[in-house]
């Protein structure tokens, strides 16, 4: 009897869940339904993590997109005013969950997708978007594999080969480094890839590289720091996630070796860690508020927008620091609108063709896509941590040495 009871109860639970779920989804369905009646609607998918390892970063990217949407909520297609509806899905920073999320976007009938933070999930979604004929614009996914061989994937940020090379140049220009200790995360394609490009360029410039990899979940970085010291490294190049980074920063501070890293380090976590430990930290980023008028305007507008809304502020990590990924999210959204406008249609293939010809001046620089779907950005912003003020400051704009 108890068994039967348990079974009935569980089934009831399951059924109520189904009811809840479909009720909720039905709600969102209704919204688009009302769109069919009166105003015209074009759907833009947002494919970002809001949970999992990259959840914190993903949420900031979404904020940039939402902010852009609040600035430009409509788009003109063929003389008609369309309302832009954002369909936001959570890819949970994991490939298998990302696939479900991407398929959900396809099923929802979005015209174009934006995202994601993290190259791995973007690459996982690429075939799904391609098959469905939906173009996608990556915001901060820097791995070449995202666009390479994926005709429907574009992106508004620079690529790892470029970023890695620039950072190697920075190491030489700024620190006169002969020996670099390259610290990457085992199993992380972003980290390992960037490390690889840095190594290639640094060695080309005549330096020596000592490399090691950190296995996932390890928290003890002292061994790496010891090894870097033993190798007489002038700089430590450590492209890594923020969690690993803050562990590393803390322990590297005592060694007095400057740390260089990639775009992921543009984050409040790094600021805290570096301020607390007094480590010398430099990283590349996509955005500098002082670089252009557009950038400054974005910063002010974005901060104001965050201030109006508690939830948004929470999603930004509780501060009103403007992350580069938010700026990229903003640019990606604006580029998408340009393309929709140029295509004059909500059809994915038409938008894809239009994207190739879009030119747009964004807050992170000019956007013009090449045949691979990448933008040609030849300068990278380098920022550092001012430990005394507890703030990021612009170091320089670094390009490649010829």
């Amino acid at each position, binding site marked *: 009897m108890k068994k039967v009871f348990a079974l009935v109860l569980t089934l009831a639970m399951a059924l109520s869940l189904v009811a809840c779920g479909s009720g909720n989804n039905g709600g969102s369905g209704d919204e688009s339904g009302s769109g069919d009646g009166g105003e015209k609607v074009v759907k833009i998918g947002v494919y970002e993590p809001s*949970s999992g390892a990259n959840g914190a970063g993903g*949420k900031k990217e979404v904020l940039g997109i939402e902010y852009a949407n609040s600035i430009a909520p409509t788009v003109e297609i063929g003389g008609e005013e369309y309302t832009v509806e954002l369909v936001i899905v959570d890819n949970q920073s994991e490939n298998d969950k990302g696939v479900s999320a991407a398929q959900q976007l396809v099923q929802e009938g979005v015209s174009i997708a934006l995202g994601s933070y993290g190259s791995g999930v973007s690459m996982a979604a690429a075939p799904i978007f391609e098959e469905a004929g939906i173009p996608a614009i990556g915001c901060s996914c820097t791995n070449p594999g995202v666009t390479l061989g994926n005709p429907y994937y574009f992106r508004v940020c620079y690529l790892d080969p470029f970023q890695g090379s620039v950072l190697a140049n920075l190491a030489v220009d700024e620190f006169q480094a002969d020996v670099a200790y390259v610290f990457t995360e085992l199993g992380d394609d972003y980290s390992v890839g960037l490390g690889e490009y840095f190594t290639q360029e640094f060695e080309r410039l005549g330096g020596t590289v000592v490399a090691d990899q950190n296995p996932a*979940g390890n928290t003890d970085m*002292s*061994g*790496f720091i010891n090894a870097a010291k033993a190798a007489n490294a002038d700089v430590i190049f450590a492209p890594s996630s923020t969690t690993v980074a803050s562990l590393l920063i*803390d322990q590297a501070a*005592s060694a007095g070796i400057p740390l260089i890293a990639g775009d992921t380090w543009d984050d409040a976590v790094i600021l805290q860690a570096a301020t607390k430990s007094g480590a010398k930290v430099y990283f590349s980023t996509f955005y500098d508020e002082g670089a252009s008028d557009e950038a400054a305007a974005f910063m002010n507008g974005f901060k104001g927008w965050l201030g109006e809304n508690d939830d948004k502020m929470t*999603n930004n990590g509780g501060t009103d620091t403007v992350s580069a990924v938010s700026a990229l999210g903003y640019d990606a959204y604006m580029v998408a609108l340009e393309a929709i406008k140029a295509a004059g249609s909500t059809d994915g293939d038409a938008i894809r063709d239009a994207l190739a010809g879009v030119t747009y001046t964004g807050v992170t620089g000019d956007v013009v896509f090449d045949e691979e779907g990448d933008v040609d950005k030849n300068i990278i912003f380098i920022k550092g941590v001012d430990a005394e003020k507890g703030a990021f400051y612009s170091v320089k704009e670094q390009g490649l040495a010829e």
Partner: protein
Amino acid sequence: MELFQKILPTLLSGISAGGQYALIALGYTMVYGILRLINFAHGDIFTVAGFVMFYAITAMPLYLAIPFTILVTVLLGFTVERVAYKPLRSAPRMSVMISAIGVSYLLQNLMWYVTGGQAQQYPSIPWISGKVMVLGVETKVVTVITPFLTVILILLLVFLTKRTKVGLAMRAAAKDFETARLMGIKIDGVISVTFVIGSFLAAVGSMLFFTNYSTVSPTVGMMPGLKAFVAAVFGGIGSIPGAVVGAFIIGICENIIRSLGWSTFSDAFTFALLIVVLCVKPTGLFGEKLEEKV
């Protein structure tokens, strides 16, 4: 001397890591000794302690935050036992282990929800966060303190188990659960005490750990937790000195491997060590020999 200068940092890191593993490993080994349960949630309790400290320090002064953290952690350990393990006392061991995995899953998701997945900077604790020179190598005070504190805590623990009534009851329960119960030992009480002590050690361990590695994130406790468990098995699960020796061996070995540039395999090595020990001497280094019963 030059060689010594090179090896010393590695050794220091190893001993410090070992001390921290030891404090976590004790929680595993004590619970296993009595319940024959791998408390998979122990690593997460350790992480929760880190977060509690992080939030406590924003609301109260340090001298209150430390006891508060310990109290909350101990309460959590106690509650987990009462809610998730006690109802399953007569169930097969597999059920309890699954429950432990479930608790671990729950705690991780809970931490994720509360913190939003952001890694947090652990507050510095004045007496142990400073720097000190050891034989010409600069290191954190905590690195030096950890092994000593560990040894002191362990001596206290050994005293507790050997010289007090509760300790006697614990040893009796570990030897034979049923008989101990028949002899009038309040088994639930003994188990609670075990969890309380284990969680206390986890709280202290987390303070030392996060002072050294000052970032708290929801999954940060998983690997140290697993390694501490490996240490406990390596030393002979159920044996207090075994867990400690195992923890130090693993801490030092790991750091030696890293210093040789084989970091990729440092975790794999730990597990390989475990498997070799299990296959060659299933009771671990100091494990009590179990008589075969049919």
